[in-house]
Structure formats: C-alpha cells, structure tokens
C-alpha cells in the first residue's frame, strides 16, 4: 500500500519533471530554515543536472566537470570584477561562452578515446586547467581566489531588481535554473535525446543505425559543459568570490557523488543528490572534521549496493549506465 502510494506520487513527478521542479523549488526557501543552503542545493543541483546529461543519459563518465564549472565561474567573475562589464547578463554570457569553448576543445580531445580512458582524460584536462588558473594569478587571483565580484542589479526591460538579499538571489537563481531545466527536458524529449539514450544502451548499435555518434557525443558533452558552466557562473555571483578549488578535482568528485547518490539517469535525481550531499556536509561538518570519510563510506556503499541512487530506487528507475 505504502509502496504503491510512493510509486504513484513519484510516477506523477517523473511524468511532469518541469512542473514538479517549479512547484517544489518555488516554495523551497519558505520552509527550509537556511536560504543559503536552499540556493546552494539549487545551484549544485543544476551542476549535477549537467553532469547527468553526459553520464546518466549518454552513458559517458566525466571525472573532470570541475573544468566547466570553473570556466563558468571564472568567466563570469573575470568579466564582472576585472573587465568591469556593467551588466549581469553580459557576465553570465561570458561564463557560458567560456564553458562552451572549454567543452568544445576538451571534448574534442577526450572523445578520441572511449570508456575509462575518457573518464581519466577529462580528469587530466581539468587538472591542467586548475594549474593554469593557479599560475595566471593576475587574471584569476591564483591561490587566493578571484575576489570582488559585484552582485549587480538585474536589468530587465523597463526596470531592474536587486539580488543582494539572499532571498532575492534565491529567486534569481530559481528562474535561471528553471529555464535550464526546461531546456534539458526539451533536449531529452527531442530525437537527439533519443540518440543519446541509444548511445548509452549500445553505441555500436546506434552507430549501425546510421547515427553520427561522435557528433552526438560531442554535442552532449558541450551541452553538459554549458549547464555546468551556468551553475559555476551562478555560484560565482552567489559567493562574490571564485575559490581556486572550483577547478580542483574535488569539485569534479563532488558532482559525481551527488549524481550517484541521487540517481544517475533520472531527471530529478541530481537535485535529490545535491540536497542529500549538502545536507550531509552541513550536518556532519558540525560534528567532525573527518566528514569526507563518512561521505566516502556512504558513496562507496551506494556504488556497491544501491547503484540506482535514492531517486532511482524510489521510482524503480534503472541504473544509468549499463553498456560497456
């Protein structure tokens, strides 16, 4: 009885992901005690959503998504803090453009190899960007991070809104993330989305059906990089700082953990995973300095025993990636 009720509710949510997202997150900060945490969940959920497009839906595992997250963050940060562009939209556009260019170049190199090679190559390229960011201190602030990013008023036709209060910033992020979620439902619902799933299930068969799978994979990679880049841009605006760690491998690891906790290959799993991870981090870091140890144990247990993740298990979904 209880199970069928859960299945019924989760089934409805899965059938209407965009509406469910909007309904849930439009009231989220009203009952969550910390608006800061709500915003973080929203932004990291978007990060995991972008990662999931590549891992969960196309079946290719990237271990270097810190690269696009960092490119988005630094792109926006440098545009607003160093170049002094006067519009938040231009700042966001610069972040997206940086992630796009990075995605095209790194994707071109990494997609030359498949499988586990690919995962490690993406990690290597992300580390390369980290070291570049570290040494280009004039531009990026190096080890100290990039500071002084202004939270400019959001200019809209006819009026402008301040996003300096944490509540206003949440809803500013909410609108952008909702647009991204809408965009992703369109991508996944299109024939192109079907090709991606075909590649995940069996890339040889997809190729034999006449689809240009290299192009589809690169396109998926670049889309994924752009969703990730938008998350990075928003996080730069949220913190008004870009720490150098945003390019570090730990950031790539975080998004892998979030997505697997939530459920790879499910649409809303990334948000569930981001919420679970951040809530755990928030609680555990109050108790012990060794909280990554607990996260490591939980993550390993999920890989071994619960590969569908929280949301995937609740909705009876399938493990995101099965083809070799």
């Amino acid at each position, binding site marked *: 009885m209880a199970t069928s009720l859960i299945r019924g509710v989760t089934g409805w949510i899965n059938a209407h992901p965009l509406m469910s997202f909007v309904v849930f997150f439009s009231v989220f900060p009203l009952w969550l005690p910390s608006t800061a945490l709500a915003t973080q969940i929203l932004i990291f959920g978007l990060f995991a959503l972008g990662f999931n497009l590549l891992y969960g839906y196309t079946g290719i*595992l990237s271990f270097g998504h810190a690269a696009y997250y960092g490119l988005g963050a630094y792109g926006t940060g440098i545009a607003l803090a160093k170049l002094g562009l006067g519009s938040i939209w231009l700042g966001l556009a610069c972040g997206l453009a940086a992630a796009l260019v990075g995605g095209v170049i790194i994707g071109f190199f990494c997609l030359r190899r498949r499988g*586990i090679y690919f*995962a490690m190559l993406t990690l*290597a390229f992300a580390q390369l960007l980290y070291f570049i960011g570290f040494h280009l201190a004039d531009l990026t602030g190096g080890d100290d991070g990039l500071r002084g990013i202004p939270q400019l008023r959001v200019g809209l036709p006819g009026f402008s809104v301040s996003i300096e209060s944490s509540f206003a910033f949440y809803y500013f992020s909410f609108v952008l993330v909702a647009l991204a979620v809408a965009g992703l439902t369109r991508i996944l619902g299109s024939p192109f989305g079907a090709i991606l799933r075909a590649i995940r299930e069996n890339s040889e068969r997809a190729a034999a059906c006449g689809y240009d799978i290299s192009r589809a994979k690169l396109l998926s990679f670049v889309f994924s990089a752009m969703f990730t880049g938008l998350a990075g841009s928003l996080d730069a605006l949220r913190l008004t700082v870009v720490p150098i760690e945003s390019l570090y491998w730990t950031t790539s690891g975080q998004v892998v953990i979030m997505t697997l906790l939530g459920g790879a290959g499910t649409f809303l799993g990334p948000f569930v995973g981001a919420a679970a991870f951040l809530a755990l981090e928030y609680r555990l870091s109050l108790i012990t300095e060794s909280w990554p*140890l607990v996260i490591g*144990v939980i993550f390993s247990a999920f890989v071994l025993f619960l590969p569908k993740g929280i949301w995937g298990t609740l909705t009876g979904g399938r493990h995101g990636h099965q083809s070799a």
Partner: protein
Amino acid sequence: MLDIPLSVLAAQVFTGLVLGMIFVLLAIGLSLIFGLMTVVNFAHGSFYMLGAYFGFFLLGFTKSFWAALFLAPLMVGCLGLLIERFLIRRLYGRSPDDPLLLTFGLSLILIETVRLVWGKIGLTLSPPPLLAKAVNLGFMVFPTYRLFVLGATIVVLIGLWLFLERTNVGLIIRAGSRDALMVRALGIDLGRIWLLVFGIGSALAGLAGILAGPMRGVYAEMGVNVVIESFVVVVVGGMGSLVGAIVAGVLLGQVVGLTTFFAPKLTEISIFVVMAVVLLVRPSGLFGETGLME
C-alpha cells in the same frame, strides 16, 4: 644558447630520471591492472600514499629503513588483495565505470583515515644514514639516495620482466590481457590471477610511495596528483604495454625535470601538453595497439 654548466644540466637530467622511475613503478601497476581487468584503480594514488605512511610507521617500529622498504609494499599489496577480493570483485559484470567510481570512494576513505591517524601535517621520511650523503660521479655530485632509487627500480623491473616472460603465471597474465574469454575456455581460473595482479600492482604503488617519500615528502594528499600523472604516463605509453610504461615514464620524468629547471611555472602543465600531443598524433599511445582494451 643559455650558459649552463654541464654538471648542473647532468644533475637535472639525473633527477628527472629518478622521478621517471617513480612514474614507471606507478604506471606499470596501473597498466597491469587495467590491461588484465579493464579496471582503472583510482585508489592507486592512495596506495602510493599508504606506502609512504606505512614506511614511516615501520621505520619508527623496526628502526630499520630496509625492513620498512621491504614490509611497507607488502602491507599495501595485502590491502590491495583484500580490496579486490571483497569489494571490487562484486562489480565485475557491471559497467566498467563502476570500479572506477568505487575506487574513487575508497581513495576518499583512505585519505581521510590517514589524516585521522597521522594528522593533517606532513611527515618527514629520512633515508638511511648509508644513503644520506652524496657521491661524486666525476662529472657531477649526486645524492646517494636518488642513485639507490634508480638502482632499486631497475632491479624490480628486471624481476617483474622475468616473472611475466619466464613463468607460467606470467604467461597466463599476458594471455589473459589479450583474450580473457579464451583463457577461461582453457579451464584457467582467472579470478585468482586477477587477485594476484591487483596485489602486485598495489604493492608496486606502495613501493613507489616509500621510495618517493624521502624525496617528495609524505602527506595525505600526495597520491592525488600522482594517480593523474601515472595515468598520463599510461596514456602516453599505451595502455597495457609494459615497454610503453617504461619509455613514457622516463620521457615524462625528463619533461618534468627539465621544465622545472628552465620554466618552473610550466612544470605541472608540461606533462598534459605531452599527453595532448600524443593523443592528437597517436591516440592509442606510443606503444599501444589500436582498439585494444577500450
């Protein structure tokens, strides 16, 4: 040309060679495990780190560097055996990404555990008094310990080569990485071979860790960049190729050594540039076979 005394340059080349030996030890373990089991062991860097920490512990316990040098890789190898037998083995038959994800989780656990046990501050691992000095080679003066690392690695490599090329088990390992299904069809239990290879690979990483400890310092995160570096070595050399791992390890040791000398800011970036070039020109690596084990 730059005006650099030959002895300084020679010392730099030698330093790069010793670093290359560490790369080779790490890359061979990674490549053996991948070649046979198509598992990328993300915890390889943590095994390297554990080698150094176990070495530090054993040195304090036995007061003998030689005992530590022998026992630390053995302990890491045993841990590798346990991890393969009880954790990674459960994932065979699932997506090849899953062992990578699991070993990533394990590396988080190992790093944090080491921080808990030995603290967050790095440790100093001293070479034994016998090796703490420097020798005059005629054209340059070089630390004895680094010469020892060079010699020890060469001995281990010869031993490994003899094992793989001259023993029955070595034959099965080589056959298994060519065609596991065929080897199984001949009635050979590959599960035990996998266990053994995972143990050997882990022990080699542990050996690299204790050897590198006195040169590069001992700290909990020491393995993180190393796993990426050794993967770059494997990509450049060609996955599954032992000769490739050796050549690429030595080559990248030189690249790092010489950029440290001529352009220190580019040190960390240099190996990735080499990797990108190799991927463009020869995607399967210098000694890799196209399409093998993807």
